[in-house]
């Protein structure tokens, strides 16, 4: 009986310390920190590194006259300075100048379709602003571009190098006006001798960034 009484007394003294974690109500200061776990949703920031555009202009072949050209371009901006661009365009060239001298001309029909596509890399060399009137300033960039591709006409494919420069003026963040000047260099052997020809192209177009 005495042992049980001593044991009970001992336990009552020990109990608060043993179960301190479960019953802090013994002490005055009741600090139960409420750890609120917030779900932090990081919203995705939209980006527009890709560009898609259409352009039209003139394409002057070295031997077959000047004609209107139209095409599309798809590009990706890697850093603020470098970008890559793929272009596909089409025009019609004619050998009218030769038909006056040679009986059959060079091509089977007077006008033959010319298609070209290429992949180029460009550098934005002169970023800045252009000022229109007194109150408006638009971001712009002058770029140098060069690349390689293929020109196809009259059932022949010619490996083409292109080199050029252009100006891009941003009307809005998502749209720009682009004027592009390119020299397409490829070898042709239709006129007897195989020679490298330089074909200049000047186009203007609209580009959308998405």
């Amino acid at each position, binding site marked *: 009986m005495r042992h049980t009484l001593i044991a009970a007394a001992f336990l009552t003294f020990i109990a608060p310390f043993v179960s301190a974690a479960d019953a802090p109500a013994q002490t005055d200061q009741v600090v139960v920190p409420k750890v609120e776990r*917030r779900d*932090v949703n*990081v*919203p*995705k*920031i*939209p*980006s*527009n*590194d890709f560009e898609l555009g259409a352009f039209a202009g003139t394409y002057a072949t070295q031997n077959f006259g000047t004609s209107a050209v139209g095409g599309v371009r798809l590009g*990706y*901006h*890697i*850093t*603020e*300075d470098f970008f*890559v661009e793929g272009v596909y365009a089409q025009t019609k060239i004619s050998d009218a100048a030769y038909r006056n001298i040679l009986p059959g001309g060079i091509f089977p029909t007077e006008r033959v379709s010319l298609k070209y596509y290429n*992949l180029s*890399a460009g550098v*934005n060399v*002169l*970023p*800045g*602003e252009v000022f229109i009137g007194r109150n408006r*300033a638009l*971001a712009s*960039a002058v770029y140098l571009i060069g690349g*390689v591709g*293929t020109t196809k006409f009259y*059932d*022949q*494919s*010619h*490996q083409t190098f292109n080199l050029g420069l252009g100006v891009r003026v*941003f009307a809005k*963040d*998502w749209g720009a006006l682009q004027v592009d000047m390119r020299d397409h260099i490829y070898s042709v*052997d*239709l006129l007897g001798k*195989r020679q490298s020809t330089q074909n200049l192209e000047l186009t203007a177009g609209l580009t*959308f*960034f*998405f």
Partner: protein
Amino acid sequence: MQYRLIPALRCIASLCIALGALAALPAHAVDAPEERVQVADAFIELHTGPGRGYPVFHVAARDEWVAITLRRTDWFKVRTASGKEGWVQREQMERTLTDAGSSKTFRDVAVDDYLRRRVELGAALGAFKSEPMLKAWTAWRFSDSLNVEATVGQVQGVFSGTTLWHVNLNAEPWSDQRISPFFGVGLGKFKNVPNTSLVGAVTTHANLANAVLGVRCYLSERFVLRADYTIYTALLNDAKSTEYRAFSAGLSFFF
């Protein structure tokens, strides 16, 4: 009359679809909630365009809240509480705090991104049996040491031109090193078109098998240098096959 109507209708329909797609894009961007960060540095500079060549027109001081609306390459378009919108460089954005008070880790294109790269695009210049060759590829890295690569190549020789394409499976065992070798095998197609001025010229179509051994070197930012040596086998028919060797070096970038 009706023959001209159908292409015109097709043109109008495709233009309508394109305009509809374009109209849908900005609406999606407006609906998404914008992220707000607080400037922790002394100030951040807002440029008029996404590049270091564009002038600074406004400065957001410490403790000002800015909302991020758009990103292009390494530049973020932000809007201050007073309504001014400008572009801030990534390095300056790194020293901002989020709503919860923690510093936001802006995804810096560093070596970590290179290790997590998934899609790669590149182009290379080389020699295909001593004739100049150009090729472009796109690769999808589906595991740490394996990737699938689709390549398109063009060879311009004096007498003929070749276009080829092939799909490779490459293994890169030490892809986390700065300079890492890789090897792979693949299949594709090969087309050789001789110049029309040659007599009796015939276009050759053949299946192509190749084995490649190369090395990749991580340069900086998002660019990777690559050099490789490939053995191509063109299977002309059941009895005949020709072997070509090609060496190329080029540059690629990754997303």
